[in-house]
């Protein structure tokens, strides 16, 4: 019931399909907020462009993979393209849920993205 009553958040066009290359990130201003739109090759992600640590422009960092939890001196590389590294202190954020891998108390806001008629839309 509550689902039905919940007011749908508006959608904003942020880019056209083909505008953001695979692995690329376009920084846009939506509703007064700076957002990074990242193309991982399969889908688009919308990430708030503010690091929760010292408020650096997070989306100017790099998208990469990282080492997964392992035993001492075992190296397992994973999450290729799913980790955003802050350009300042290198804090790693999971672009799927916004959580900081090193300290989950810190979280960056991520937004719903949809593609409609060749347009990339962000809901916020």
């Amino acid at each position, binding site marked *: 019931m509550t689902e039905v009553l919940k007011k749908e958040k508006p959608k904003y066009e942020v880019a056209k399909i083909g505008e953001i290359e695979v692995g690329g990130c376009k920084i846009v201003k939506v509703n007064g907020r700076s957002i990074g739109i990242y193309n991982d090759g399969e889908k688009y992600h919308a990430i708030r462009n*503010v*690091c*929760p640590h*010292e*408020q*650096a*422009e997070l989306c*100017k*960092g*790099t998208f990469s993979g990282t080492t997964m939890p392992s035993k001492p001196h075992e190296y397992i590389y994973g999450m290729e393209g799913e980790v955003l*590294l802050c*350009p*300042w*202190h*290198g804090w790693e954020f999971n672009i799927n849920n916004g959580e900081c891998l090193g300290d989950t*108390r*810190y*979280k*960056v*806001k991520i937004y719903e993205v949809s593609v409609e008629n060749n347009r990339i839309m962000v809901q916020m």
Partner: protein
Amino acid sequence: MEIAEKKKSSKTRIDYGIIDCDVHQTINSYEDLKPYMPRVWWDRLKEPGGTFPSLVWRPIPLTRRDASPGNGLLPGSDPEYAKKDFLDRYNISKGILTGSLLTISTHNNPDYAAAVATAFNDWTLDNWITHDDRWLASIVIATQDPILAAKEIDRLGSHPKVCQVVISPASSQPYGQRWFYPIYEAAVRNNLVIALHSGGEGEGINSPPISAVGQPTTNLERHNILPIHQMSQLNSIVCEGVFERFPTLKVVAVEGGLGWLPHLMWRMDKNYIAMRKEVPWLKRKPSEYIMDHYRFTTQPIEEPENFQEMIQMLKFMRAEKTVMFATDYPHWDNDDPKFVLNKLPEEMRRRVAYENAAELYQLNDIHSQ
């Protein structure tokens, strides 16, 4: 709720000046130094890293990706960009340039190292100091040959914008020893502060490893333990009586951490009572020399979960007298002025943001023109 959003409500305005005690200007390539160096050294500049040895692999690049002036230029290589991206953006009153030659003490050839230092200093004065009145310069010296280092200090020491001499705490022998006296004599003669800024620990000719027990495996482990060099040099400088020999000398530990000082200081004072007879030249407790002669910069500020614990540490080390603000712009672990200063109690904030540095560098007397 996100932590970023919580912070907004506690923002306060910093309505006094900020002196930043650690800003890094850099060359894009060692070959930029050619015009400032004799031909004999040019071929070495083309080699990787200008032939300065380094083992460090950095999981996070040294300089901030978002601070590049563009066109592939290195962050900190363009004074015009740094003026907008740093001085103007953060409303910095004075920025003390500490350079990017902090591994210079690793080189096996003291003449080459000294020539690179001289070239870098001239490059800084030509390209940065003339560019904006808010910059002040550190001159870098190669400690391999203290006589050559003293000559460099005398060559530039009277320049009105030169306020300190920067060296790395990485060395082959402790800095309190008499071998280094020519450097302290020259610094005092030229009314310059000595700054110790991390670089080249455990590399090249610096035989003591990065940690006291051997070379660590990762940069995380290396970076955690860097302050051990600052601790070792402070311990040596105080115990060897450098401040008795040079009563006007001032030393700054830059980017070396803060919280270790109370521990070391208390330990030194306690041991002094028992072993004073070994160092009869010390007329006062070691902590008294530290309070009068040593200063410490904030970045990278320690961030315990409860910052009140850090405030306590700052009180233990008399931060209202001994601690000075620094960003470390444009390096990866730089601190935003508001992020650090807003956490401090008002009286301490003013001292740390401006007054301690203004007093140390006599900014209102000498460098204010």
